[in-house]
């Protein structure tokens, strides 16, 4: 099709299907409309509704871009990103010490992980886990060179995995580090093999450590057009398009993605880093005690453990159901818990320079009020910095990231960026603020006037700054704090959002009371300030 004036962008997740209509208006691409629905809904029905609404809203525009023709549902070009189904990797090593970096690499590349070593699981247990039909691939590794604790069991581990490979010829086997030297055992194991036999670097090799193995495992987990991998590419394009450091946090049904990207400087290419953690899903497939505890820690709803477990199980079975009222608050508590898992699993990305913009995306945020999403992100991704928080409301990052040509991807992103990112809030999070009396003052100069605030340690202050408005915040602290750099006087540019400007003087990282009732009251008081439309 030559030079289409409009196309449809699809992000097809495991739980959510999103459709967006993009059209060329004037000399640039614009987002015309979009809709997210549960994944079981017929796609053409969603497309038809999006097109119908676009036509009703602006008939001349619909005529211009050709979205009002009878066969538009099927004739408009489609740009599709699809989430790969979750896959399970069995990780085996000769010792617990050798197992840890292998498991870490596997967990950060999006696999569901079953880990075992002969130190803690007997060979019968390891064989049982390898023969489990839910396991799609096996990573068996050793240090390079193998440690003294590994050498004694290396042969037995290799024999055990090779025997499982004989019984399951469809399994993909990855030999990492010194285990590669035992390749002949696996080659001899079967001429009938359908699964791949791959050699991989040790889990402790590369810079940053483990990256080569992670990249290999990511390639193995999902095809290149997988939504999560596409979002990682889109992060780099977005950073280039807006010339800012960007962090994307995606919480979905089957995992969470954290992608950080910096724009290129002086013709050099920018940098990007992404981790996809299956454990950082909205609700795990098996709601165990740990999962209940994680959500309970963020819940603002008075609920006992049994009822919460039931609600989480229902959320797993029907992730879009019961999304209003108490359901909305529990969903946001689950999203916070998942985000905390994601942040904890990616310490290297937390150590990078703070981003200028955090973009939230994924089904977990799809139906929550925007300001509440901003607070949820600020609660968990705590960086001593001034940053913006935005929402990829039409879920365009994945389809845009699936465009193979990098230049085309950046151009499209540059055109649509203002439409695709809903500004949620600007957040100022100073670090190292001493508890006690007033820490200083802040003055916000914006088009609508000047606001003056006292800086109270531990507080969360909200300054009304609507979307589209920009201003400058001047902060004068009594003592030295961290806000990007260290100092006492700062002036930062701020932009408006649905939640306005948040001055967050709470601890970094956030410290909450141990007692659940007090913790709940505190979380609720913070949330009340932003979830302003909530019915009481």
């Amino acid at each position: 099709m030559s030079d289409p004036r409009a196309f449809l962008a699809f992000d097809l997740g495991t739980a959510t299907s999103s459709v967006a209509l993009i059209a060329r208006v004037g000399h640039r691409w614009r987002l015309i409309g979009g809709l997210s629905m549960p994944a079981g809904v017929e796609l053409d029905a969603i497309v038809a509704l999006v097109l119908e609404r676009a036509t009703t809203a602006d008939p001349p525009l619909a005529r211009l871009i050709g979205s009002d023709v009878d066969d538009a549902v099927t004739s408009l070009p489609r740009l599709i990103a699809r989430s790969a189904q979750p896959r399970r990797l069995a990780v085996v090593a000769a010792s617990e010490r050798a197992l840890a970096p292998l498991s870490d690499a596997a967990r950060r590349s999006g696999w569901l992980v079953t880990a075992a070593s002969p130190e803690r699981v007997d060979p019968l247990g390891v064989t049982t886990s390898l023969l489990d039909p839910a396991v799609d691939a096996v990573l068996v590794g050793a240090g390079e060179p193998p440690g003294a604790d590994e050498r004694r069991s290396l042969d037995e581990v290799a024999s055990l995995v090779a025997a499982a490979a004989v019984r399951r010829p469809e399994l993909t086997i990855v030999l990492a580090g010194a285990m590669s030297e035992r390749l002949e055992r696996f080659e001899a194991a079967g001429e009938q093999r359908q699964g791949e036999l791959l050699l991989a670097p040790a889990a402790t090799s590369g810079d940053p450590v483990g990256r080569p193995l992670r990249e290999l495992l990511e390639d193995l987990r999902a095809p290149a057009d997988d939504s999560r991998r596409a979002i990682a590419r889109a992060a780099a394009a977005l950073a280039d398009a807006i010339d800012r450091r960007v962090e994307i946090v995606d919480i979905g049904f089957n995992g969470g993605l954290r992608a950080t990207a910096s724009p290129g400087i002086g013709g050099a290419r920018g940098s990007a880093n992404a981790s996809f953690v299956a454990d950082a899903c909205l609700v795990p497939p098996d709601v165990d005690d740990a999962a209940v505890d994680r959500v309970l820690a963020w819940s603002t709803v008075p609920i006992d453990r049994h009822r919460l477990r039931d609600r989480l199980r229902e959320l797993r079975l029907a992730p879009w159901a019961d999304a209003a009222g108490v359901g909305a608050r529990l969903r946001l508590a689950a999203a916070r818990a998942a985000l905390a898992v994601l942040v904890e699993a990616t310490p290297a990305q937390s150590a990078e320079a703070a981003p200028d913009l955090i973009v939230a995306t994924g089904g977990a945020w799809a139906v929550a009020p925007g300001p509440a999403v901003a607070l949820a992100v600020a609660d968990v991704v705590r960086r001593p910095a001034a940053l913006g928080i935005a929402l990829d409301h039409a879920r365009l990052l994945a389809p845009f990231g699936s465009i193979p040509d990098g230049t085309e991807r950046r151009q499209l992103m540059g055109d649509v960026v203002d439409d695709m990112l809903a500004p949620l809030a600007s957040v100022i999070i100073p670090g190292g603020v001493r508890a006690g009396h007033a820490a200083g003052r802040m003055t916000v100069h914006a088009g609508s006037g000047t606001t003056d605030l006292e800086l109270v340690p531990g507080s969360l202050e909200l300054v009304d700054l609507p979307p589209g408005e920009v201003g400058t915040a001047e902060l004068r602290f009594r003592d030295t704090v961290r806000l990007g750099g260290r100092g006492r006087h700062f002036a930062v540019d701020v932009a408006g959002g649905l939640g306005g400007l948040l001055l967050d003087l709470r601890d970094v990282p956030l410290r909450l009371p141990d007692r659940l009732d007090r913790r709940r009251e505190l979380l609720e008081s913070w949330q009340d300030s932003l979830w302003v439309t909530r019915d009481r």
Partner: protein
Amino acid sequence: MIDSGIELVQRRVVVDDRTDIRFALHPGDRALVGSGDTVVPGTRVVERVRDPRLVDVPAPNVDADARPGDRWMRPTSADAGQMRRGPGPSAGELLFEAGGRWRLATGEHVEHIETPVAGVVRDVRAGIGVTLQAEGRILRGVEVLGDPTRGVLAGAGIEHGGEAVPGLFLRPGSLDVGLAGSILVVGSRIEAETLTRARAMGLRGVIVAGLAGKERRDFMASESRQRAALHRLPTFAVLVLDGAFRRPIASPIAAVLHALVGREVAIVTDPPGLVFNEPAIEFDPPAPDLVRVRGGEHAGREGHWVGLAGLRRFVGGTFLEAGWVHVGGPAPVAIALADLERFG
């Protein structure tokens, strides 16, 4: 003419025509059927080792061309070498060879798993599973606790012309031995105590719309104790149709169950569902505008689709796409599309 917006409501399949069911095999277990075998209900398909353990045998005592997964039998000839001297295992499943010895999985006590359905064995893989192409149709649930089982369907929760009784709650005292051998439909929810009593009275299974996590945990603990006993009761299974919350069985599903009352049915665990082989029974398709509320304020209620309501503000300041549904009141109410399901 149904408003076209109903396509935006998720469809739930009531009955599937064909299905493959799977019996799990673990290392040490033995398949008693082969690929291509035709089986009838009650055929033993798996010999399960109750407490598998790992033992070593010297490699010379194993055939030179043996492969992992092969069955090993204790040599009986005078050439058995050191195997003669010890009380070692008489049989087991070869796992792997290392250091001149084979590791094998074996156990003292075995129990037999019978297929509750007729069909043709499609695949047998030692240590992995037996796959059976089942004859008949399947009504899918979300979870099964227990073992595959078979019995005559009896309905406590589907009286009143096939309508599920909202909020029906079966007490332990409601059960009697007259129900032995049956699979009982109990409606919206059940307690662990009732499940335990049902199993003790010889019922073969229970079908329930929702099972709360606490009851699930208590029943599983009881089931675990039962498994540990030497003299086991007949197989028993709990089929959960919807999830963890209390809600009535959906009327199209209740209609299927009602039609099957008095017939032999089977509960299978993988996939979780109710299998029945009654080709003579035909089910009327549900009304095309029938929708059921899956979650939220009206959870469990059914009604008729009226049309799209557009983006609506719901409790808690959440904006959701909604549809108008008649749920019995004088006027239709707006319900989030994501809370609805239709049947097909």
